[in-house]
């Protein structure tokens, strides 16, 4: 309970304030906004100013400010700057570097999503305020979830994220697929959430506290029968695995990724997954680390997610659906890092967690970039089916080359950051010197090979096949800028991996080190 300071919540506050601003501006501005009817009501200069504001711009500003604030907090609480790497905010939240970093991942992802949304909803501007309001709220929910330190805040932040995501998935109300995605997402999510709530209630009943740390300490005393503990654990982890889209809680992802508007899919695949990972990490780390050996459990989830995700991606004809399976498999790779972390709890450098963070950075850039490119192609050709990518190299070479960079990164091949991430995660697994983890690494590399097949199936269409219509396709500016920023960063950050590695080392700090 030391150092309770609202300043530590500045990122969340900024996000929510700007969310509200975006909503308000959405009402005023635009062709059918309030200001359009009565421009004289506020006097010309102010009206012009408000007219020029747009929710997307506001959202981007909010995210940038939140990122700056997060950076400030991160470097303010690092060991070299302060006495403790961890600041407990009451019992509900804990501000530690790992939590901040997961929040930053979400903010960066959302920052990439906003330009995509500008292209995607170019013909539907009137709901722009709501869209950005929801996006920023969802992003704020992720940053909250990453800091959550008791069961209640875990549950509330995840629910906050879910509810906003349901609406976002169904944001194209005129599109039946989008609505279907929202309904499926909602039903599946509600069921998982209920299971989690039940698990939490069991945990509370067993330990009499909601605080993760309290639960961890209580479980450490070891007075609970194993079956009850396992039931509680598994149930509690349900909603988290759902957010991460790990097998067997992945089924929603397919229809939702395919049906949701592409920018929303991009958000779900990175930011929402980051929330799940952050909470999973904290639950495993703080609550269960000392009480049970969850490494095999995570190992099984990981192997299943990788294998099923990659194998099922092979026959897909729709790129968004293929990427849904691919994102399931990436959850699996990331879980290798978690399993390695579970084995090396006493490693003060948290080598495995560093690997997870580097991996996440690579995944963030590659996945946001890919979806931005998919968004651009969808905008240009009206389709996300693989045949729409035929001969893309000759029609829009920039997009095609960038997509190859992203595919290399997702498959974990050099010269991209995705390679560094895979390398590091596999290294963490090998480092444990435990047979289970060796197997997991072997399954991981085998899966990387499989993944090349389906990623490069799209590359094949783009490069090897002739376009049906050879007319050049000028990519929409907003999406293309995200594509290029991500592609350049994917390559540049491998060359300049050292600064990122240092940042990962700084971020790999968790509160309540179990010993």
């Amino acid at each position, binding site marked *: 309970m030391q150092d309770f300071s609202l300043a530590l919540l500045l990122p969340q506050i900024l996000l929510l304030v700007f969310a509200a601003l975006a909503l308000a501006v959405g009402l005023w501005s635009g062709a059918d906004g309030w200001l359009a009817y009565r421009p004289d009501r506020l006097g010309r200069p102010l009206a012009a100013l408000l007219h020029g504001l747009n929710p997307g711009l506001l959202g981007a500003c909010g995210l940038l400010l939140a990122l700056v604030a997060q950076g400030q907090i991160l470097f303010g609480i690092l060991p070299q700057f302060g006495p403790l790497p961890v600041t407990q905010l009451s019992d509900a939240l804990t501000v530690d570097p790992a939590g901040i970093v997961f929040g930053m991942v979400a903010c960066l992802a959302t920052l990439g999503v906003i330009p995509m949304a500008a292209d995607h909803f170019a013909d539907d501007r009137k709901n722009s305020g709501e869209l950005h309001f929801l996006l920023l709220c969802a992003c704020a929910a992720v940053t909250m979830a990453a800091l959550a330190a008791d069961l209640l805040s875990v549950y509330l932040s995840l629910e906050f994220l879910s509810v906003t995501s349901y609406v976002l998935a169904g944001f194209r109300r005129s599109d039946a697929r989008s609505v279907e995605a929202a309904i499926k997402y909602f039903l599946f999510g509600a069921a998982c959430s209920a299971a989690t709530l039940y698990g939490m209630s069991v945990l509370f009943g067993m330990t009499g506290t909601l605080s993760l740390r309290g639960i961890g300490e209580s479980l450490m005393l070891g007075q609970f029968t194993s079956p009850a503990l396992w039931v509680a654990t598994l149930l509690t982890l349900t909603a988290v695995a759902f957010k991460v889209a790990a097998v067997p809680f992945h089924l929603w992802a397919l229809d939702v990724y395919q049906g949701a508007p592409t920018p929303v899919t991009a958000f779900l695949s990175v930011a929402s997954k980051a929330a799940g990972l952050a909470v999973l990490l904290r639950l495993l780390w703080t609550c269960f680390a000392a009480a049970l050996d969850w490494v095999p459990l995570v190992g099984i989830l990981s192997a299943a997610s990788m294998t099923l995700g990659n194998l099922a991606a092979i026959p897909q004809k729709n790129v968004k659906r293929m990427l849904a399976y691919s994102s399931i498999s990436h959850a699996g790779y990331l879980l290798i890092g978690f399993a390695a972390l579970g084995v090396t709890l006493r490693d003060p450098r948290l080598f495995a967690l560093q690997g997870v963070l580097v991996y996440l950075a690579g995944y963030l850039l590659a996945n946001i970039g890919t979806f931005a490119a998919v968004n651009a192609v969808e905008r240009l050709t009206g389709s996300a089916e693989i045949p729409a990518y035929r001969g893309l190299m000759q029609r829009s070479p920039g997009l095609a080359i960038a997509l190859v960079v992203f595919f290399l990164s997702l498959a974990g091949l*050099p010269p991209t950051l995705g390679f560094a991430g895979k*390398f*590091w995660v596999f*290294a963490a697994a090998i480092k444990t010197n435990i047979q289970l983890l060796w197997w997991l690494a072997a399954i991981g*590399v*085998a899966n990387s*090979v499989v993944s090349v097949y389906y990623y490069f199936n799209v590359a*094949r269409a783009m490069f*090897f096949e002739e376009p049906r219509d050879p007319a050049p396709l000028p990519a929409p500016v907003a999406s293309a800028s995200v594509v290029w920023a991500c592609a350049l960063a994917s390559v540049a950050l491998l060359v300049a991996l050292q600064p990122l590695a240092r940042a990962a080392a700084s971020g790999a700090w968790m509160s309540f080190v179990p010993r």
Partner: protein
Amino acid sequence: MDRWVLTVITFWPLAVLAGVLCIPARMERAIKWFSIAGSLPPLVLSAWLWLDYSGQSGMRYVMKVPWISAIGVDYHVGADGLSVPMFFLTALLTTLSLISSLNITVRVKEYFALFLLLETGMFGVFAALDYFLFYVFWEISLVPMYFLIGIWGGPRREYAAIKFFLYTLVGSVCMLLAILALYFATGAETFDMLQIAGQQPFAGRGVVQALVFWALFLGFAIKVPVWPFHTWLPDAHVEAPTAGSVILAGVLLKMGCYGFLRILLPTLPEASAQFSVWVGALALVSIVYGAFVAMAQMDFKKLIAYSSVNHMGYVMLGIAAASSLSAAGLTDRATALNGAMLQMFSHGVITGALFLLVGVIYDRAHTRDLREFGGLGAVMPRYSVALWVSCFASLGLPGMSGFVAEFFVFRGAFPAYLLFTCLATIGLVVTAAYLLWTIQRVLLGPTNEKWAKLPDMDAREVVSVLPLIALMVLFGVYPRPILEILNGFARQLAALFGAG
């Protein structure tokens, strides 16, 4: 100069690539000549490297700069007797391939850009002395070749491209796991190849050592390729465009052998010695099987492709003999290694020329079916001379570089693996048979009326083949310049396995 030369050679093609990207795609001649001119500086520098290095030994031109110190990765490059000839081979074959690609008409800009990217990847593999760096370049060389086969290849190009990609990738990821195991085994948290090799991790650790050995073996053996991991090769070589086949056979296969000599033998000498009999057996199968299968081919290009399996078998036989458990002395082992490395260079030159010559005839006749040719010797005299010389070099006629290399391998392998060496001579005989038969079917006999009007090789084709033929003859008659370079490395590596 010494410190920077390898870096300049490696990244120069990337700079040229950046230039190519700035030229508008419709200016095809400008792109072609700019790329060819741009490929000359690395060629000159690697020739300088050769001259400068001769008479020396040990690792030179070293540059070591911390890269990712968080995990102990350095930008660490250097060259020794093993890699100097490989630099020259890479630079030479790239320039000649680009010259022979002047007749490319489809998507010229992409073609030349990919070729330059490929060149950087190949140089990087031979320069890297850090596992992380090595792996990065190893994979970089994979991707452009995938596109070269897939876009400009033959009828089954898509299948061949992805098969090549996935096959090699399986090997590389096994190698990746082995590299990580090496990294953690030393406890020094370094990816420095030389340092790890110096520490001899896993010495005396049976099972783990064997696992790491076979993982690395798979990574390199697929690339070489050693039977039974060769099945990607005929597809990739046959479907690739001519210049792609030249680089594939000339340089990319050598990367596998290079891995054996640079990484596997020095780092795991114990396991290498223990398993060398298996490596030798696989090499023998490659030699004999490759030769017989080549003989059965009716497709000229496929025949040359299978002859690569056969010829790379000699390299592997030399490597196996050098690391054998037998009582063979230092000189025998060094001889085998010299032979293996000479064969690497010589095969690059000879097979490069052969693929170019297959390309020449395919461009004219639009078929590669050996049954359809005949009597071309009278129609195309220049072509005929080039093919005669190259085939003789390939079958190991004395006075040609192939002979010197194979002689060294057999001489070196004889004390270690008497039986294998004797059986491997079957391969020699069959190779002679199918190459002579090929000459007979293509150049001799009655002229097929269909081809009576074929034009002889033009300047572009002569220029791209002539340097290779000169090298075959030069090193066949006077191999000393290359052996001087190789020998230092060979003796140093051989000393790990047997005393003098």
